[in-house]
């Protein structure tokens, strides 16, 4: 069985499309931890036939941003299954996703003896000031967030976990121009044939054992990989940023992100004349943001 796993808080707006998209890919059951929502997220999730829901009002930060909660659930329930761990603002796509369900991909990975499938987060954004275009729940977010940066990503290989550290994209370009080191991490390994001994280290950016991070070819070839369309920049981002400023529950160093949230609240236009309009996975594959590997 292919499982989905997520921690979320107040995601009523994104949830309908999030669930629909990943159901269509063939996620058969979702393990979701809901954290102190007050917008109906909990009730909505409780109503879904294919969602197992856990709720916690404890601190997101103290649970290593929800990862501790999720890790335990995955130890208990995901052992031996392919498991897709996502945030609510991530839409997983991969080569041929529109014609081949996840089971085709995982079956092929099994045949190749590969246990994990990497996907870079691709920040999607609208044209015009943030928050101007209203997103309706259930709508395909790429109708509004149709733009992305195609070729400004920087990669380094990190020891001791041997993961790639990818940064760049629109957030580096617009918010971290002065402090590029602080730009958000984009590499992820969201799809893993789970074993109760495995553990995500920092969101799904890194995983142990470290061979699962080595999902890139070192000898010049290409492994297969996907993309997580990141829908952070829907109109709700303005409200969320205000909230985050108050909650200060973000990763590592909250104060560091204050400027970032303040800039977001000012509704900047992230679009530039060299932004690329999203046309589908074949375009992303041709641009080298994802790869088919030998999966033809």
């Amino acid at each position: 069985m292919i499982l989905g796993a997520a921690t979320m808080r107040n995601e009523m707006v994104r949830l309908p499309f999030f669930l629909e998209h990943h159901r269509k890919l063939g996620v058969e059951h979702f393990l979701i931890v809901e954290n102190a929502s007050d917008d109906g997220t909990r009730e909505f999730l409780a109503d879904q036939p294919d969602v197992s829901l856990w709720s916690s009002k404890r601190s997101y930060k103290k649970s290593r941003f929800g990862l501790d909660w999720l890790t335990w659930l995955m130890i208990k329930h995901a052992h031996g299954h392919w498991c897709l761990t996502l945030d609510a603002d991530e839409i997983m796509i991969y080569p041929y996703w529109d014609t081949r369900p996840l089971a085709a991909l995982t079956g092929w990975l099994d045949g190749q003896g590969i246990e994990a499938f990497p996907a870079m987060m691709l920040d999607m954004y609208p044209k015009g000031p943030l928050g101007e275009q209203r997103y309706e729940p259930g709508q395909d977010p790429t109708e509004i967030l149709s733009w992305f940066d195609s070729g400004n990503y920087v990669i380094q290989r990190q020891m001791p976990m041997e993961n790639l550290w990818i940064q760049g994209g629109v957030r580096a370009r617009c918010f971290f121009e002065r402090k590029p080191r602080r730009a958000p991490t984009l590499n992820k390994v969201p799809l893993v044939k789970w074993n109760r001994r495995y553990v995500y280290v920092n969101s799904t950016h890194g995983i142990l054992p470290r061979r699962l991070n080595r999902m890139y070819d070192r000898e010049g070839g290409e492994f297969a990989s996907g993309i997580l369309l990141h829908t952070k920049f829907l109109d709700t981002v303005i409200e969320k940023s205000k909230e985050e400023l108050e909650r200060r529950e973000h990763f590592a160093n909250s104060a560091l992100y204050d400027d970032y949230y303040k800039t977001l609240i000012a509704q900047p236009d992230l679009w530039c004349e060299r932004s690329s309009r999203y046309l589908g996975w074949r375009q992303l594959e041709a641009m080298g943001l994802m790869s088919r590997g030998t999966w033809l």
Partner: protein
Amino acid sequence: MLVHTALDRAEQVARHWSAAGCPVVIHVDAHVPRKTYKAFAKALGNAPTVRFCQRHKCEWGTWGLVAGTLSASEMMLAEFDEVRHVYLSSGSCLPLRPVQELIDYLAARPQTDFIESATTSDVPWTVGGLSDERFTLRFPFSWKRHRYLFDKYVDLQRKVGFKRKIPNGIQPHMGSQWWCLTRQTLSAILEDPERDRYDAFFQKVWIPDESYFQTLARLYSGNIESRSLTLSKFDFQGKPHIFYDDHLQLLRRSDCFVARKIWPRANRLYDGFLRDPEGAIKMTEPNPAKIDRIFAKAVERRTRGRQGLYMQSRFPHEGFEHSITSGRYSVFQGFSDLFEDFEPWLAKATGTQVHGHLYSPERAEFAREQKVVNGALTDSPALRDYNPTAFLTNLIWNTRGERQCFQLGPADETAPIWFIAKDPNAQISVISGAWAVPLFKSNRNFADLRQEAARLQKLEAEQLKVLRSVWAKARLRIWTMAEFIEAPMEPLQSIIDEMGPHSLRRLTEAPKMADLSGFGQFLQNLKNQGMHPYLMGDFPVSPPGLNQPKSPRKPYLVQ
């Protein structure tokens, strides 16, 4: 039909063959649980010409597959007298053309055996590194489950020089395991008086399903067509490619009779190809060439990848591949110092993108003052300097198909000079010491100039050391400024000729050189202050022709 999984699809395909008049004998892997097998057999109970043969345990690369095939073949020949050709297929094979077309095709070639069969020395597909040795070594350990022991045992046998004897001097042949043999050939193999010996031999051969029939058919067949009628592609690791719904058109156009492996849940394929035939019967030959090309490309993508691309699933070791960028580009040092209009001149002469100093401390000076270029790469120096090589590889990747040129100078300290020097795609042209020209032209205090000159000379000397290192792979040209200005057109011509076919004409217009009257004296003044500029070569204090007052140079024509 060899079956071990996705029994519902196997049933569907077996019915299809049988309904079209072809009897089917099914071998079900003995690993399949009894209950599942019973249910499967029962489901096909109402198909009159479907039989089930004795079951053997099949593990990849072992004798079980051949044993199963032999049992099924015996049953087929014994129970169905009218059968002339026997086609070996699997549960994940799918007929792509109406069965009648295959029947007609074989009827027109009644004596032909279709079996890919080549001697070991003639084939490149030996995944795992074993070809002849498949036949001469022993393989008691499973390659899939006990790889370590498998490898060690092979090594050991090599060391002690162990070799099995090949019976009766048969010549081992290999090929695709999916064959189509005539009754004559197949029965000759089955009824061979020496068969026990052959079986005993092949039981210990590695991957006998790719060599048993391929070898023995050579003994009896009068007419071997060495190709498989089954379209089956393998990836570079020897694993079969799987066909999905989106391959429908590709498979149709291939005109192959049967394809494998089909993904069991590829509903469109099963629905599309297992329909009753419509339209006229075709007599075309199978044409897998197109598919071959596409899959060959895939192998290349997997093994060589797209050069100069760095992404989440491709991040080559440094120095592991020939080209570390995706295309050729040109780097100019000193040219825009020596010539007043070098950048627009170069753009005009070559039709390429000519940037200024991409690694200038102030900003990345993109062509035409752009603040952001392809791929949303910005001119921000902080972003650029965070990872200067990624900045360059991104620029070159983003502008694939359009040659990039940029200026470099000793003051561009964050430029990844080692990286560029080691890149065979880089064409680097340096006029050393030309950085002194802007100093000479500037209106700064001499003490500052002297200090700056010393700094730049030191930096450039370092850069030149890197460029001249034994590890440098770039196409490199270095002149001292004194050398260069003696005959500037010739080097310019050769640089531009090397850049590509679009500029295979003579340069007619030269860039405008800065007025150098007084430059020799300027250098002498530096020397007098104790700073010895040497990178520009020797400039006499007042060379004839350089120091004489004259009007500023105009562009001139070269005859």
